[in-house]
């Protein structure tokens, strides 16, 4: 399911990118993201959202015993960061899912799935950049599970996802849970 979802978003975004102007693309892509967050086929388990200082609730999947750093949002090993390439916003004044004060989230991004070893679930996550200030410079993190080169833009973490912001200066990256990936 998660692969199908990735491909769905990917096809939709690429098709839109080909067929529309920049402004049109952004609007439509935003709709895709919004729609994905509301997809009834994807049960969103808010209770298992793992934030800094907020331990993940045990799930009914296949719990594992992760190394401690997999539960530390300031560590690159944190499970939600499975395909982040950049600076962790949690080290820059934000959290794993919030931008630092004074920055602006990127309206466009790409979506992947990460496995939470604590509750055994796969989660759909949205990788967004926080923009408008120069490099945070803290907690560089490079992980690339499922990452693809730039010609498959919707699965790429090399490009500056701040590119469409009024100020496209890249500051740091977050990983925002959108829901549980279906089995």
């Amino acid at each position, binding site marked *: 399911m998660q692969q199908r979802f990735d491909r769905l978003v990917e096809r939709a975004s690429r098709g839109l990118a080909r067929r529309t*102007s*920049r402004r049109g693309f952004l609007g439509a892509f935003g709709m895709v993201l919004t729609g994905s967050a509301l997809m009834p086929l994807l049960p969103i388990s808010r209770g298992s959202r793992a934030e800094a200082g907020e331990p993940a609730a045990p799930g009914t999947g296949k719990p594992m015993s992760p190394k401690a750093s997999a539960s530390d949002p300031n560590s690159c090993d944190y499970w939600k960061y499975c395909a982040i390439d950049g600076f962790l916003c949690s080290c820059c004044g934000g959290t794993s899912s919030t931008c630092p004060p004074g920055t602006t989230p990127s309206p466009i991004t790409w979506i992947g799935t990460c496995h939470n070893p604590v509750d055994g679930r796969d989660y759909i996550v949205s990788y967004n950049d926080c923009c408008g200030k120069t490099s945070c410079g803290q907690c560089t993190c490079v992980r690339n599970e499922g990452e693809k080169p*730039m*010609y498959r833009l919707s699965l790429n973490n090399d490009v500056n996802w701040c590119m*469409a912001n009024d*100020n496209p200066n890249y500051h740091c990256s977050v990983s925002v849970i959108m829901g549980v990936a279906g089995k």
Partner: protein
Amino acid sequence: MRLSGPSLLGVLLIAFAGNSALAATTAPEPAPPPLAAEHLKVEAMPAWSPHWLYAFDDSFNNETDARVWVYDGDHGRALGQFEAGYYGNVAVSPDHKTTAIATTYWSRGGHGTRTDVLEFEDNTKLSLQGEIVLTSKKAQSGAMGPFNLSYSPDGRFLYVTNLTPAASISIVDVAARKILGEIDTDACVLAIPSIDGTRHRVSMLCENGRLLTIVHDDAGKETSRSVSKPFFDVDKDPIFVQSVATPTGAYHVSFMGDVYEIDLSAADPRFPAVWPTVSAKERGHWRPGGQQMVAYHPSSHRLYVAMHAGGEGTHKLGGSQVWVTDTITHKRLARWSIDEKKYGGAFCMIATQDEHPLLFVATEKSSLLVLDATTGKLLHAEDKLGQTLWQLLNP
């Protein structure tokens, strides 16, 4: 150890007494002549050498301050720098006299009015010789390679890649210092230049594994375009966008270590048979990785690939070894180890194009290694050059 005031004075007095005793028995050495007065001047650039390297330092920890190092591989020393702004895309002209940098600046450092600009740097003086202001669309990708900004083989045109995320290229008349126009590239990326007879062309990689080729006229207007059949499988084994230019096109390597050649020497693009750098036993265990993981020396037909032992998702890991393969026989000639503990893995590589080639290797710790590209012998090492070396160029 800390000494109190009186104790320290005591030690100094003892030392002084010792020196006095020595002076009583030994004639003093004559004082050396004073140093000559110095005169401040600016170094002149030496004569060009094929062993010069242009090394893009993204300055990732303060990315608005990228720069390009100019480095002399024979003498193992930096010659100077160009400023490269934010996410600069860099190309050196075919006559190696000019470095073009497409980049972004803000009027107030990291904020204020944004200006995208194509700057032309004089390689003989390391000074800015001109610029063209671009529309604010320039592609900003950490996957630096030879085709994010590229000269046509005759040096007449420059192709600036744009991504907003809609993809396009801007075509620049180099002599006139003028943007001729912008062409939509149908979501395909890069700008791989070629000339078919008198027709200037530019090719790019598409998400469905095809190659889009656009022909343009002298005014920068598109005259035709064609799309190839798929020549790689994006889902099963994607090819890196960071490739190496050849006299007729480019070599790309795939995540699993296969070599894909794009041959643009004929009227239509050709894709010679794919060949592996890894054995069947090594496949999936050893992989290419890093940032600019492939280099090529045409006359000795040697391909250099940064390789590491790792699984899926490790495609940005630097190489613990450099594998050397003959591009004609496809036989592996050597495996050269990189001192990962000291320098980090091999991250970017480029071979000089002369008959006594050097292989420059930038590492994950931003060390710069100078190797004999024939033997693999380490000739020189800069433990640290800049902050984050992400692209090496040698025209």
